[in-house]
């Protein structure tokens, strides 16, 4: 990985775009499958993919920019909105999708669902409880540190989570013990219906890093190149044994908090399409001569093929047998 402070080179930028396209293609497919069978009307418990569904459209720059610096030996802990991070971190799409469909070939054999993706192969996990993915990341980093490796743990939350006790306790402890953690905050302006201005006393969570004596950076404008550069610094610092950093990215939630959210609370709905980071990045890379229309089409087609294969795999996998419902409580 060529990581320079001057920003990513052409090869890296193509990769960032490709990752973002894969993430978006995935969310579009889940969106389609989720709503396919919810009627008449909308019944959250119905369909091939029942339950709450938090999709990540718009937040791809965070996943792509951060995970580009990781290998599958590094850990990622994510939130209720985990798909983009899981994909960018290299999770097997078939096992992931089968879990979202609640099938036996899913990562959690249908027990977990979309907020509970646990993948030992990529050291990925997530939690539906706000900010509670931060503390376990400390432990993963602790294990990496104790074993003398240069592996890192990346802990991701939304900006709403930065007002939770677990967030602050984690920053302090990681700083105190110089744990190799990169704390990432995805600031999408909203915690469900509550705007950042009504939840957070400071304009940037990056400033909160100062309270724990660690570097804090905020990337504006959902800029994947800038995310990549800032994450590169934070990951390098952690790998070098210099301890944790905090990175906040101002991103955008293009869709509802969860599917079925009418978003009546949200005044900026009309301007959202203009804030989509993917066409914007495509235009930039095209202008820079890094991509052309044919390459973009090829990437989209390849992403679509992978995603549809994963969906087909999930649908072909068996439903869990009710007589196994009590399994896996203990090791």
């Amino acid at each position, binding site marked *: 990985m060529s990581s320079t402070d001057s920003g990513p080179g052409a090869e890296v930028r193509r990769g960032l775009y490709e990752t973002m396209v894969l993430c978006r293609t995935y969310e579009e497919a889940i969106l389609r499958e989720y709503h396919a069978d919810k009627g008449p*009307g*909308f*019944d*959250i*418990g*119905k369909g091939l993919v*029942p*339950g*709450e569904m938090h999709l990540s459209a718009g937040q791809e720059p965070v996943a792509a920019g951060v995970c580009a610096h990781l290998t599958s030996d590094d850990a990622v802990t994510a939130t209720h909105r985990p798909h983009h991070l899981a994909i960018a971190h290299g999770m097997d799409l078939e096992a992931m999708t089968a879990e979202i469909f*609640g*099938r036996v070939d899913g990562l*959690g054999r*249908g*027990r*977990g*669902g979309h*907020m*509970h993706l646990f993948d030992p192969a990529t050291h990925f996990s997530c*939690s*539906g*409880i*706000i*900010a*509670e993915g931060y503390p376990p990341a400390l432990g993963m980093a602790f294990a990496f540190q104790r074993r003398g490796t240069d592996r890192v743990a990346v802990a991701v939350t939304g900006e*709403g*989570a930065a*007002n*939770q*006790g*677990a967030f602050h306790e984690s920053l302090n402890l990681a700083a105190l013990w110089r744990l190799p953690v990169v704390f990432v905050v995805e600031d999408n302006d909203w*915690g*469900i*219906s*509550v705007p950042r201005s*009504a*939840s*957070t006393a400071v304009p940037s969570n990056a400033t909160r890093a100062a309270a724990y004596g660690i570097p804090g950076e905020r990337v504006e404008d959902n800029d994947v190149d800038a995310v990549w550069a800032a994450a590169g610094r934070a990951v390098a610092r952690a790998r070098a044994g210099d301890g944790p950093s905090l990175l906040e990215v101002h991103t955008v939630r293009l869709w509802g908090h969860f599917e*079925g959210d009418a978003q*009546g*609370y949200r005044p900026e709905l009309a301007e959202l399409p203009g804030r989509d980071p993917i066409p914007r990045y495509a235009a930039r890379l095209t202008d820079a001569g890094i991509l052309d229309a044919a390459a973009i089409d090829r990437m989209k087609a390849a992403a679509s093929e992978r995603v549809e294969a994963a969906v087909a795999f999930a649908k072909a996998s068996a*439903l*869990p*047998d*009710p*007589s*196994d*419902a*009590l399994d896996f*409580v203990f090791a």
Partner: protein
Amino acid sequence: MTITDTTAPQATRRLNTSKAMVEAIAQEMRANPEVFYLGEDVGRYGGIFSSTTGLLDEFGPNRVIDTPISETAFLGLAVGAATEGMRPIAELMFADFVGVCLDQVYNHMAKIHFESGGHVRVPMVLTTAVGGGYSDGAQHSQTLWGLFAHLPGMKVVVPALPADAKGLMAAAIRDDSPVVYMFHKGVMGLPWMAKNPRSVDVVPEGEYVVPIGRANVVREGSDVSVVTISLSVHHALDVAEKLAGEGVSVEVLDLRSLVPLDREAILASVAKTGRLVAVDEDYHSFGMSGEVVATVAEHDPGLFRVAPERVTLPDVPIPYAHSLEYAVLPRHDRIEAGIRAVLR
């Protein structure tokens, strides 16, 4: 404080459970300026499960307050405001989230009155959504009322039917002790979730208070007592109707409150039928179902003509996949099997 069972005589107006709950909050807020409501997404959104719809419009943002996602801070704030004589209603969006703020609940809200030798009161309501049945997974589907009821110092009410949702809310707000008010998502009558017709029913207009700690025989019967709470009341009534067609007379006792528990009502019902089925959407062990059985066993095991049955959530986290979730939830099929088991 006096609590009256003021049943409006000719009430015909029908409301769903969420509207009935909100009506009581609004009436109490009009009557008492010390009452305020705070929590996540309770303002403009109106509560994720419609627990506060319309309250912001009527009472404004000083009394219907959206909080940061800081449950320890805002539940603790409610505790402190209550000790200063205000009457806060604090909403924990899902009962499952109590893990992040349990200390304020059980070591503070629930213990201050005792520790102060009765000198400091904590007149607050903790509202919270409970229950599964729509594939929300292991962290968003629990009822956990047994946990709250286990810890002394807080009353616990769990309405199943719209009128009780209103009357118990009014009682909870007026109570001088902390009251945990647990509403099952499946009884609220939400437009976006499968619902039982019983989630819409006649609700008295005007002031209506249901005393905390009094169970209700929602269906009289002579063969079997089904003792239960919350959404399981709806299911039990469905099963009772079905079995009536076979000549089986099922009594359904809706406990309505877990703390205090109406043990007299349990004993009276089992004394009549001799057969007990305790139905509980909480975990099987160390919880409500065991407490119900123990209530009878301690009083007079001779009341049991046959060994009692418990139809509960087995001691397993609630699975996501529909096929697994419905295998563990106490729904119609399992309740019916429980009843048939004690009839053998």
